[in-house]
């Protein structure tokens, strides 16, 4: 069984490889999704002084640690891209696996954090602040999980020297997930 090679990643009618353009389109739509959510949060936060009391219960250190984890995983993702550009698929795959390690760490820390908060009564229905907290961070965590799965598929290919251009594509997506967290961190943790 053989399929013709998809042209999407090779053709480039706009001067941008079509696969990369598709990732940018995806990110443009994600900007509206996360932008709308965070914009709503910001408006409510400014209009409701009582939210500050609720926000005081989030743990800045856990948030800061997860920011560190995501920044580091972005660093390894961009190094994977560099290795792929140099044609070193094995090195790119190893760096992608390290990046996935960051994703797993992030999700584990987040699970422990949520378990602690939920067991102390801060549930998604406790008040509107916590509703936003779990919705925004939860949507972001789903992106982390999805990114890590796709990264695994791409790493397996890259290890065999195949589809190396995809390493850059997952990298761009991963950096976007990082950027979203860069804004979530001050919104949910620092501003008390």
């Amino acid at each position, binding site marked *: 069984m053989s399929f013709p090679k998809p042209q999407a990643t090779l053709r480039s009618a706009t001067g941008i490889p079509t696969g990369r353009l598709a990732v940018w*389109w995806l990110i443009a739509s994600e900007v509206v999704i996360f932008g709308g959510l965070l914009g709503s949060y910001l408006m409510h936060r400014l209009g*409701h002084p009582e939210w500050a009391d609720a926000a005081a219960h989030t743990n800045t250190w856990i948030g800061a640690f997860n920011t*560190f984890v995501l*920044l580091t995983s972005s660093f390894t993702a961009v190094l994977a891209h560099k290795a792929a550009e140099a044609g070193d698929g094995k090195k790119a795959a190893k760096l992608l696996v390290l990046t996935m390690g960051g994703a797993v760490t992030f999700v584990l820390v987040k699970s422990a954090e949520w378990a602690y908060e939920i067991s102390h009564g801060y549930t998604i229905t406790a008040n509107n602040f916590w509703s936003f907290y779990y919705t925004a961070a939860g949507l972001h965590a789903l992106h982390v999980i999805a990114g890590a799965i796709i990264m695994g598929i791409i790493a397996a290919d890259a290890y065999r020297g195949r589809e190396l251009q995809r390493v850059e594509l997952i990298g761009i997506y991963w950096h976007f997930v990082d950027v979203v967290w860069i804004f979530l961190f001050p919104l949910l943790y*620092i501003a*008390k």
Partner: protein
Amino acid sequence: MSDNHDVNYKKIYFWLLGLLVVSVAGPFLGIGWVTLLTAFGIALVKANLVIQNFMHLRWEKKLVKWLLMSSLILMALFVAGVAPDVMNHEGNNWVNVAAQAAVERGLSDEQSEGGEAPDGGTEVAAAEPGVFSPVAQFNLICALCHGTAGDGIGVGGAAFDSPPGNFTDPVFWETRDDERIKTAIRDGGAAVGVSANMAPWGALFDDAQLDEMVEYVKSFRPQGQ
């Protein structure tokens, strides 16, 4: 793939970590505007570093920049359109009673609990017996579907297949007694064999308050029934 960008990724990475430390340290000074600057100013700087250097937006064609800019403009339009409604709780000839009540409740709740965890926000309404008013509760919760006149004509109810109960209809009262109304309010419509679209509200009211709600619902009953 052919793009060859000479970026010192390690340097960018250490800048990001340094900025992270500053953003965490900022609030320790206890100065409001410094916290805002170190939290959100630095978030912008960090995001820009990642977008330009890791995502390589600097070297990307204009098309992509326009694409992202369009998304940001749409987002700004949304915020600008909604913000006046969300951030103000009163204006010319209008007052957002529910939002004002939420602020008051949230603030007093936090003080009375001394920073303890809430057990669920819905209990807050029942925790202040001094201000309990069945009329206000009805207008806030029930009227959405049942209408402020109790006639079953509320905006929320229009979407349901089975119309919400019409308390001004004599036929409605042929099959109702106090206990059944109380059960329906507390445990939902399904508990008395009518539509489950009638949600259970038992978490909001204690027993005495439920009785008051029943009395208010009965006040819609036509005379002579």
